[in-house]
């Protein structure tokens, strides 16, 4: 009986198979559209302002410290506008709050009212700053997803294949992860921290949760950065030496066994290798500059917000508005967290690319 049932089941399985197959013609538009969605118009304008032509990587040499400094100053001045308004607003409410200190009747005005007012007035600008930072991370990730394979190919052609493979694999993984985290994790965390800041300002018994979160994330990011950069660095250095040996052996074989033109051939490889290294270096430098431009505005904005909120906290403490001061320091912790994440993201990509620029070629004698 059991055998009959088993045979029937097998026959039915063959009669009603389930089909599974890969897409025969994957649309290249579907693959390329996320890359083309990256808004690079601001970056192109910034590159023009710095005197760098994106179609000519050699123009990177024209970048002077003066131009870079004036660009950074202009970004800083632009970023300062909204935080100054915040300082003004908070100072006025801190002054009102300090007036209530003289009252013996303080019900509802023991800072809670002003904490609510300041939070309601400031939260829209802060959420907008979070959105801009998340958009910058996504834009930089999209740029890197197109840039990494190109630069890795140049590094591989320059002779350091293992470094190129490591760079490609680790940074592609990192960029995809960063884009995913930015869109689905970072902004919700920032918004939760914003809500927690208001709660801990209204009820000081809650403790400083935002500071604890910020310190934890900073430690974890530092560890992750050390790990990733260590992997790329070690593989770059080890691969450079190993492949240098292979190149020397190949050159020796060519110069020894190829008659008449053997020596010329082996020396011409050196010329080709050096020219590829030059291309790798200029493309790498251009990539680093573009990364810097992607990350500069949100980082400067986050740092300026943090500085202004800490200053507001200091003013509030000076005027005796302790709860308002707690709110300001808490909001400063949120922007400190945001700037840590942005700096970590930029440093990871910049240092990894820089390592490959400096050490990505083979050792040539």
């Amino acid at each position, binding site marked *: 009986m059991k055998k009959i049932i088993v045979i029937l089941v097998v026959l039915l399985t063959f009669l009603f198979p389930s089909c599974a197959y890969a897409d025969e013609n994957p649309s290249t538009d579907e693959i390329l559209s996320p890359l083309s969605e990256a808004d690079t118009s601001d970056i192109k304008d910034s590159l023009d302002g710095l005197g760098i032509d994106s179609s000519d990587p050699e123009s990177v040499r024209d970048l002077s410290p003066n131009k870079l400094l004036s660009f950074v100053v202009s970004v800083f001045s632009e970023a300062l506008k909204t935080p*100054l*308004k915040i300082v*003004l*607003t908070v100072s*006025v*409410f801190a002054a*009102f709050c300090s*007036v*209530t200190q003289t*009252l*013996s*009747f*303080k*019900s*509802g*005005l023991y800072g*809670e*009212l*002003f904490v*609510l*007012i300041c*939070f*309601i*007035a400031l*939260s829209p600008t802060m*959420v907008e700053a979070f959105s801009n930072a998340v958009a910058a991370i996504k834009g930089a990730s999209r740029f890197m997803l197109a840039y990494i394979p190109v630069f890795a190919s140049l590094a591989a052609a320059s002779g350091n294949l293992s470094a190129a493979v490591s760079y490609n694999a680790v940074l592609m993984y990192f960029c995809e992860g960063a884009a995913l985290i930015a869109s689905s994790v970072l*902004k*919700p965390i920032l*918004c*939760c921290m*914003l*809500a927690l800041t*208001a709660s801990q300002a209204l009820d000081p018994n809650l403790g400083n949760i935002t500071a604890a979160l910020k310190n934890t994330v900073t430690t974890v990011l530092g560890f992750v950065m050390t790990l990733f950069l260590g992997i790329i660095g070690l593989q770059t250095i080890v691969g450079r030496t190993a492949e240098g040996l292979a190149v020397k052996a190949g050159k020796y074989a060519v110069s020894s066994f190829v008659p008449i033109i053997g020596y010329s051939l082996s020396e011409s490889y050196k010329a080709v290798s050096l020219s590829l290294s030059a291309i790798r270096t200029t493309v790498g430098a251009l990539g680093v500059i573009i990364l810097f431009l992607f990350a500069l505005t949100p980082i400067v904005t986050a740092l300026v917000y943090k500085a202004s909120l800490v200053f507001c906290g200091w003013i509030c403490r000076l005027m005796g508005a302790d709860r308002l001061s707690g709110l300001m320091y808490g909001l400063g912790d949120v922007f400190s967290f945001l700037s840590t994440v942005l700096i970590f993201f930029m440093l990871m990509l910049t240092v990894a690319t820089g390592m490959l620029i400096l050490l990505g070629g083979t050792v040539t004698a």
Partner: protein
Amino acid sequence: MDIVKVSAVCLIAAVLAKVIQPTNRDLAALLSISAVIFSAFAAIDGITEVFSGSDGILGGAGVATGYVRLAFKALGICYLTELCASSCRDCGETALGAAVDLSGRVAISLLMLPLIRQFIEIIRTVLER
């Protein structure tokens, strides 16, 4: 608002009230309450200027001035409650003073209700993003 005039009126009223209190307590109480009302009205002139100044500063910074009005309303309720409750206690009516205190707390709570609703709405919107 001339602070010298206000201070002088209050001091004189306090001294006079102290002098006539043993003989005529009702008149002393009336005198002190009148001085309080005079000072309050004198302060209102100054408060109006502070209010319009703060409105101008924050309006220029692009901040909604409704919050400044709210803060001033709350301050006004607090000071009115403080002055009335203290005057009642000065007249020996502690229960009336407590009643004024309670009314002041209820008025502040009613003032804060729309703020609390808006705060919860913002938290809900922020967490839903």
